[in-house]
């Protein structure tokens, strides 16, 4: 039991500290890396929830692809003027307040609700089950998602392409 709790705390701490560092670090590349830490933490939480497949995907896409992509993006967009920006104190205060309030609401809700405590066993090998469900019940959303990805691919290329380049 304690081992499970320990693991949970470690992963949760990873996820949250990653997020907090992202907020507080000053250099963009550090921020990107710290969010990678957060993604790893979430992946760990997935494992604890018997969602191994998702944990794998999480590491692959978020911690791998997106973080790297963002790091690349950061490099591509460096060199912009980093002069003094006008301080938006009211904006920041309000943002902080609303973020805290939203969080407080959610936590209050979580705290006061009585949740089912018994976990359902999803089976040791639920990857197969995911595959079966995905290709039986959710085949149309799946295909749509593939189209979405295709569109995103084309769109990203078109958007990022330089103006006036013809090919």
């Amino acid at each position, binding site marked *: 039991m304690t081992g499970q709790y320990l693991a949970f705390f470690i992963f949760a701490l990873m996820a949250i500290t990653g997020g907090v560092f992202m907020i507080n670090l000053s250099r963009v590349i550090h921020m990107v890396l710290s969010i990678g830490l957060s993604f790893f933490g979430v992946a760990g939480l997935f494992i604890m929830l018997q969602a191994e497949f998702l944990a794998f995907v999480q590491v692959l896409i978020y911690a791998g692809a997106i973080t790297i992509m963002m790091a690349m993006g950061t490099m591509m967009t460096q060199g912009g003027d980093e002069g003094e920006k006008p301080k938006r104190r009211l*904006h920041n205060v*309000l*943002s902080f307040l*609303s*973020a805290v*309030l*939203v969080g407080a*609401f959610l936590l*209050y809700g979580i705290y006061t609700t009585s949740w089912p405590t018994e976990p359902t066993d999803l089976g040791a090998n639920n990857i197969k089950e995911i595959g079966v469900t995905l290709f039986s019940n959710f085949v149309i959303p799946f295909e749509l998602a593939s189209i979405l990805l295709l569109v995103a691919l084309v769109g990203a290329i078109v958007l990022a392409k330089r103006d006036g380049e013809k090919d």
Partner: protein
Amino acid sequence: MLANAWLIPLFPLISFVLLVAFGRQLKEGAAYVGILSLLASFVVAVGVFFERFAEGAHDYITSFDWLNIGDFVFTMGFEVNQLNAMMLIVVTLVSLMVHLYSKGYMHGDERFPVFYSYLSLFTFSMLMLVISPNLLQAYIFWELVGASSFLLIGFYFFKPSARAAAKKAFLTTRVGDLGIFIGISLLFWQTGTFEYAAIFEAAHSGVLSPEFITLTSILIFIGAVGKSGQFPLHIWLPDAMEGPTPVSALIHAATMVAAGVYLVARLFPLFEASATAMLTVAIIGGVTAIFAASIGLVQNDIKRVLAYSTVSQLGYMMMALGSAGYVAGVFHLFTHAFFKALLFLAAGSVIHSVGTQDIKEMGGVGKHMPITKIVFLIGALAIAGVPGLAGFFSKEEILIATYDSGNVVLFWLALTAAVMTAFYMFRLYFLTFSGTPRHENHHVHESPIFMTLPMIILAVLAIFSGYVVYAGFGEWLAHGVISGEEGEGHHTWIMVLSIAAAFGGIGLAYLLYGRNNKVSTAEPKGLHKLLFNKYYVDEFYGTTVIKPYTLFGYVLKFFDKYVIGGLVQFTAWIAVAIGRLGQRLQNGQVQAYSLVTILGLVILLLSMTAGRLW
């Protein structure tokens, strides 16, 4: 013949339509259209008159429904009675003379057909007014007469003075018409009709309260005051002399201005029912008579002198009617039409050849224009009331009527006015026709036959029209209109006084102007100045009515622009201000928008759970 009286106004209407449609092609031939139509009307009018004048003839009245609104029926029609049979003759005859005269007078004017079409329109309206059997129809044509008078005064539209005069005439009479309008509307709701006969019946049967009769009579009299140039609405009439002289003769001497008198005479039974109304009429008439005559004493414009004389004579008629001298008033209207038209036409003849209206620049015109001189003299004698001419008969009757009414002040007013009349007419005569020319005028010549013929005809009438009294004209007129016997006590001394007044005035004029024939060129002083400036009535109206009104208009304009418009602007400004405020929120930054969204979410959550949290 009586049933065909509707033909009388029809001919001028046809002429009007023809002239409007084909005037441009007809050119000066338009005169013949006008003259022929008027001749036809005159012939019918004469026929109608004699048929009505014959023994045992009755009034003829017929009408048709013009407008039905539910139970209300407004009719149109025509009526022949003593009064309007006489008026038909006067109007058609004077109008015919003026049509003839204008052929010569207006010769060469490029808007010759237009002039004739206006004349026809006027004659039509006037005749319709005269034969109206009800107040509504009378009011309608009363207004039309005013409009055609307006057109004719402003005939020389390119002259700013004519423009001003036309405007003034229309507006001043319009103020009076307001009185009629209110009066007849009130009468309509009390009696349910506009028919003369029904109204008289209501007035005498006691359906209408005496106060009501007084009120409506005075309101209607206000209209007559406006049209007949009575004090205090007389100001337009002298200015109306800006119109061509034949117009002045026709409209502003003989016919239209007499319409006010006619209306009072026509409604005499109504007026008679209220002593207050009668007194008002008499006083206004008397005041006008002396007031206008005194101004006429010193004016230097030949037409203006005649205009003031007209105002004064109309005041005479009103005074007579107000003093219950129905026959006297109407009779004077009859004779006055002829000699005043004659005087105007003669004056026009002079102006036509001399080229000015200022008597200071005339003198000795008589040598070159013998016919004009003679007819003018006849007219002047007639209006002065010299025995044997038309004016004498009617004026004497008026003096008797005022005396009989018991109002001594009015009587002496009338007598003084008579002296003044004789004086200013002969002042005019001496300064214009006798003596030597005060100004170089090479082309003074006698007018053509078209102009002299009507003058001669009118001169004959000015002499002899008074003698109709011996044919029982007075009794015939009064029959059925005046209930009581008219006190026909012959006051010889009044006759003597009136003759004395006439000769006194003439003699005084001779002493002052006949012998040395000079006009003082000095600035008028004192009383003379007051009279010369017409008692400053125009200026009085200018400062008490027109200026404040215009000022008020500008104040209101300011109000409209800045208060009402300002309110609108203010409303718009509020909308813009709200927009500005929103615009600042709309800063284009996604994060600000998201913040608002999330704030909104927070507020939503708060409000939804508020009760459960605490």
